[in-house]
């Protein structure tokens, strides 16, 4: 007669000690991934109270799309089933991370509110503004022959654009920018954590202030849509909306920065490929962007809770068990991606998981692609011979949350400024945002931004 313990042992026979929060995981990512894909595409790990890890492409695909058996809910007040959201382990300060830590119908209602600001058509309207911001960032460095691609470019443009789309004054970007990035890469036992928390507090205060201001005196942007939204028939509490804003800001800032930094570092190390990309950009920029997304997977995965007993992809799961869906590892599965550990700029059939899968597909994916392509193209045009300095490049110590970089200094042959610097450009873009009401949803304003002097 079999006992529950026997059944449990049988269910969890594929065991792997998986700890993505250690520096060793970053250093040995390729070996660990290859081993898990070969031996245990779904494994039980004893870490963080025990949880499942899905690495195989087919397995992650099947699981991520089974929303009837998976929950994203982060039940902070323990009024439903007490599920813990998408972070493993559960963070010390529990906070619901917007609609990414909700299930339908609330999750769907929030996305319906924000989609008209983030669809491909909505995002394309911002391209002229992004081009101005990128040009200004490069102007600040172009005459010196030195740039830090993270500090001087990839941190700046996504932050300014995200605030513009929200309806927050553009000049506030630095208040948000450092707070977001530092909160991702600073370890909780670091001496710097107190300063990071203080900066975060200032950011949240500003965010709350903006929300109250927009409630009282509406101005276009995603905040306006959120404060007017009915979610499942109710007006959501302010704290819930702050969680949504934190999700949009967190998603909009650090991920695109991470993708850009890693791609530029790789292109510096592969100058022949860089020249090819620049020369053949009309056909190569799109597939190369998808390949960088696949290879560097800025957001490496998401946690879930099993919401009902089920069998998916050959494994039996029990209600309440935790699961890590690894986009980063499934993106290296050789059954879908030939030579998975090589960057192939012209790769075809690239159905990577870097924006997630199913109903929680990254809502900012169109923003990420557009901003990345504009930054990359302008760097290729104005700094075509850039060389990154490996001694100055600082990668995040761990890649459990975001596979990012803190700094990426580079040198290049100096060139001429074209137009204004950053502060003047931000002031000019603010006027354009206000006058043209750029932050309206695409349902209200269809046409692209017009750059005026």
């Amino acid at each position, binding site marked *: 007669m079999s006992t529950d313990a026997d059944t449990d042992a049988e269910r969890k026979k594929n065991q792997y000690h998986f700890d993505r929060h250690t520096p060793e995981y970053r250093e040995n990512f390729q070996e660990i991934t290859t081993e898990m894909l070969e031996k245990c595409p779904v494994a039980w790990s004893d870490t963080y109270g025990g949880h499942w890890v899905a690495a195989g492409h087919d397995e992650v*695909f099947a699981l991520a*799309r089974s929303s009837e058996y998976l929950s994203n809910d982060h039940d902070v007040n323990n009024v439903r089933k007490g599920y813990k959201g998408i972070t493993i382990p559960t963070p010390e300060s529990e906070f619901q991370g917007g609609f990414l830590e909700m299930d339908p119908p609330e999750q769907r209602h929030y*996305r*319906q509110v924000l*989609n*008209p600001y983030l*669809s*491909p*058509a*909505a995002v394309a309207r911002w391209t002229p503004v992004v081009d101005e911001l990128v040009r200004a960032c490069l102007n600040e460095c172009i005459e010196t022959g030195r740039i830090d691609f993270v500090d001087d470019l990839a941190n700046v443009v996504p932050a300014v654009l995200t605030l513009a789309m929200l309806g927050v004054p553009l000049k506030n970007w630095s208040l948000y920018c450092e707070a977001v990035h530092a909160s991702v890469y600073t370890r909780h036992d670091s001496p710097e954590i107190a300063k990071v928390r203080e900066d975060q507090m200032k950011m949240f205060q500003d965010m709350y202030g903006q929300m109250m201001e927009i409630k009282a005196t509406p101005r276009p942007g995603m905040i306006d849509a959120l404060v007017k939204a009915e979610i499942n028939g109710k007006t959501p509490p302010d704290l819930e909306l702050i969680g949504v804003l934190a999700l949009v800001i967190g998603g909009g800032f650090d991920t695109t920065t991470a993708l850009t930094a890693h791609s530029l570092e790789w292109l510096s190390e592969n100058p022949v490929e860089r020249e090819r990309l620049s020369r053949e950009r009309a056909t190569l920029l*799109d597939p190369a962007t*998808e390949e960088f997304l696949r290879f560097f997977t800025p957001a490496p995965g998401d946690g879930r809770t099993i919401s009902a007993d089920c069998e998916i992809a050959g494994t039996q799961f029990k209600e309440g068990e935790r699961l890590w869906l690894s986009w980063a590892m499934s993106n290296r599965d050789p059954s879908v991606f030939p030579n998975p550990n090589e960057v192939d700029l012209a790769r*075809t*059939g*690239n*159905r*990577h*998981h870097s*924006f997630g*899968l*199913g*109903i929680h*597909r990254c809502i900012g*994916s*169109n923003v990420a*692609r557009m901003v990345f392509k504009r930054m990359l193209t302008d760097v290729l045009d104005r700094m075509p011979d850039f060389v990154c300095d490996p001694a100055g490049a600082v990668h995040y110590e761990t890649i459990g949350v975001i596979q990012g970089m803190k700094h990426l200094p580079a040198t290049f042959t100096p060139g001429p400024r074209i137009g204004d610097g950053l502060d003047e450009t931000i002031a000019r873009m603010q006027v354009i945002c206000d006058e043209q009401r750029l932050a309206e949803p*695409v*349902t209200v304003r269809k046409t692209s931004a017009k750059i005026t002097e």
Partner: protein
Amino acid sequence: MKVHVDPERCQGHTLCAMIAPDVFQLDEIDGHSTVIIDGEVPADLEAKAAEAVRSCPEQAISIS
């Protein structure tokens, strides 16, 4: 060749329209895909349509 997008599976990843803009169009509001072409895909677009099928992360596109 005919192509079909399953609206229940499509999540608006947009790769199909990026690869084959003459075959797929994206909804203005949520970016979900529909097929523009009524009936048979012209021969010169077949390869692109097939690549869109291979590239869809949700495997929402089929050929008949």
